[in-house]
């Protein structure tokens, strides 16, 4: 039969002298990148930790041991602990529905999932004030029943939920669409029920995308400032999350304490990046082992919102 033409791969740029840029251009490009990285990313990072330890480790630890700081850390952890599982469940359900089924309103649902990315977090906070605030639509009813949402912990959790809702779903939808439903069909035909198919075939296939989404979601839940700031009321020791606590300390010119708490958030950001790289490396390893380099199963970055995920202060 006809001979299969050999797959001509485009040469890797920089390897072949025919396609490489001139040394001057290369140095210029690399230099610009390094300069930008250094000035805008590395220096601030170092600055955070230098400022945090400017008055010694004793002051640093004291700033973290202070009751208001501890309360803000506890509230931040509580918010993440409630938000992340809910976002996870929502994300799994939404991604499954969107990637596996055609139904009326599917496009609308996709657009709605993206809404929190498109809307400024401050506006997200305002929405909840408008709904649940004293002058809000449900305000009088809530007051009559003695329920506090705005300027209380439930409001903070609601606002964080709104902002973080898309993270898991957005991560999973492309992964599930790319993988298709054939493996699930195969499992069903082999006699596995719906639940067994989901647990043994669907979930293992999306686990890296899922973990990636959860990590980004967690970083954002802990670092969210705008939306939480509007609904929190800034009550010290009660409704301050870590980013809000950093802001208060900073406004009081208590720089060492502000940067001490900020350094914790920064550590979280670094940890997130590390895990993210690990996951990307892990998925790429899998792909390379598979010998199918044209299949790009590395999780795609989410839309907006990710870079400022943990950058508060």
């Amino acid at each position, binding site marked *: 039969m006809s001979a299969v033409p050999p797959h001509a791969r485009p040469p890797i740029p920089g390897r072949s002298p025919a396609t490489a840029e001139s040394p001057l251009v290369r140095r210029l490009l690399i230099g610009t990148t390094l300069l930008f990285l250094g000035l805008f990313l590395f220096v601030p990072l170092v600055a955070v930790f230098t400022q945090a330890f400017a008055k010694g480790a004793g002051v640093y630890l004291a700033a973290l041991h202070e009751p208001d700081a501890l309360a803000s850390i506890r509230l931040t952890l509580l918010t993440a602990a409630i938000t992340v599982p809910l976002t996870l469940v929502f994300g799994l359900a939404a991604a499954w529905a969107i990637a596996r089924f055609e139904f009326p309103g599917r496009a609308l649902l996709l657009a709605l999932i993206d809404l929190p990315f498109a809307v400024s977090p401050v506006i997200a906070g305002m929405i909840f004030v408008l709904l649940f605030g004293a002058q809000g639509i449900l305000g009088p009813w809530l007051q009559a029943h003695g329920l506090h949402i705005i300027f209380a912990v439930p409001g903070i959790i609601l606002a964080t939920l709104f902002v973080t809702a898309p993270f898991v779903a957005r991560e999973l939808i492309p992964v599930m669409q790319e993988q298709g439903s054939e493996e699930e069909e195969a499992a069903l035909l*082999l006699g596995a029920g719906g639940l067994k198919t989901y647990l043994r075939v669907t979930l293992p296939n999306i686990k890296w995308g899922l973990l990636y989404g959860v990590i980004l979601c967690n970083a954002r839940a802990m670092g969210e400032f705008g939306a939480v700031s509007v609904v929190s009321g800034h009550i010290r020791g009660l409704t301050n999350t870590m980013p809000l606590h950093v802001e208060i300390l900073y406004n009081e010119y208590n720089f060492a304490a502000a940067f001490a708490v900020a350094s914790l958030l920064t550590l979280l950001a670094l940890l997130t990046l590390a895990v993210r790289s690990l996951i990307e490396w892990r998925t790429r390893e899998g792909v390379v082992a598979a010998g199918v380099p044209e299949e790009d199963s590395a999780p795609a970055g989410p839309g907006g919102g990710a870079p400022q995920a943990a950058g508060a202060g």
Partner: protein
Amino acid sequence: MSIHVQGVSKSFGEVVAVRDATLEVATGDLLALLGPSGSGKTTLLRIIAGLETPDRGRILFHGEDATDRALKDRRVGFVFQHYALFRHMNVFENVAFGLRVRPAEVRPRERDLRTRVRELLRLVQIEPLAERYPSQLSGGQRQRVALARALAVEPRVLLLDEPFGALDARVRKELRRWLRRLHDEMHITSVFVTHDQEEALEVGDHIVVMNQGRIEQIGTPEEVYNSPANPFVFSFLGSANLLRGRVHRGRARLGSIDLEAPEHAGTEDCEVVAYVRPHDLEIERALVLRPAPGAGDRPERAVRRAAIEAVVRDVRVFAPIVRLELDPVEGDGPMVAEMSEERFRILGLQKGEPVLVTPRNVKVFVAS
């Protein structure tokens, strides 16, 4: 177990994928669903499997209505075109999957399960690969894993979607002979989809030819090849030369030739298309060169009834056979003829030489 497909139709939006399909697969039969892409063959296979719900019609397994039966109760083995192996499980676990997900009371014990999976891997000749992951296998090996996985649940029906479609030509030929032997040993009722007529003719006990969602013909390979029901089936099952002309009371006049067409004995003067296979064109050297125009028409008359005058345009040698491209002196476009290399050597034909072409086994269809 037998399969009956009764009046099944299926549309996707505006597109009609399957139109009123009715067919029967006898117990132990190996049936080929043959058709070009978009002919609805894969949709029909997925309907039989239960992966698609028909808009109309019924599917019977062994006489029982299975149209609405749940997938997991159908006991259908399905081999996907791209295999759909579980990528996070190794070969062994892929094959074991169907046994592991059984309800606890009918699940085999671990030791029995291992024996059974080993047996299957031996059957499909991939036992040494048990620990590998699908990504580390070649196309042919993945195909065998997919088959072993489908067989593990002891299906009553085996369905295969383009089972050799993604393999290269040599592996494909090997694997289809092997599948045929495997079927002869196991006698499990099977349906496979293919767009390759050679594959259908070589592997299938019966062939269903589909086109644009409709079943064009059902028959044994011999029947569909030698007695095609219509021009589509004829031209889809192999190369064909097309001749146009008219038929009148059992005689067809196609360009410069006349021939008997007894199946059209009752037809009054009607336009027809006729098809003939390349190997059914008998080639002889034209001993007398065609006389120049106006030099008397007697020699021309002599050849007129049976043969077409043509000039050899090109010669292609494919090991045991030789393919000639011919330009008829008058009438329709170029023709293709095939002959043995031996015959070609005896004739000693060169490009540009005149020949006489006598068609045999011409199939004449009333033009629609």
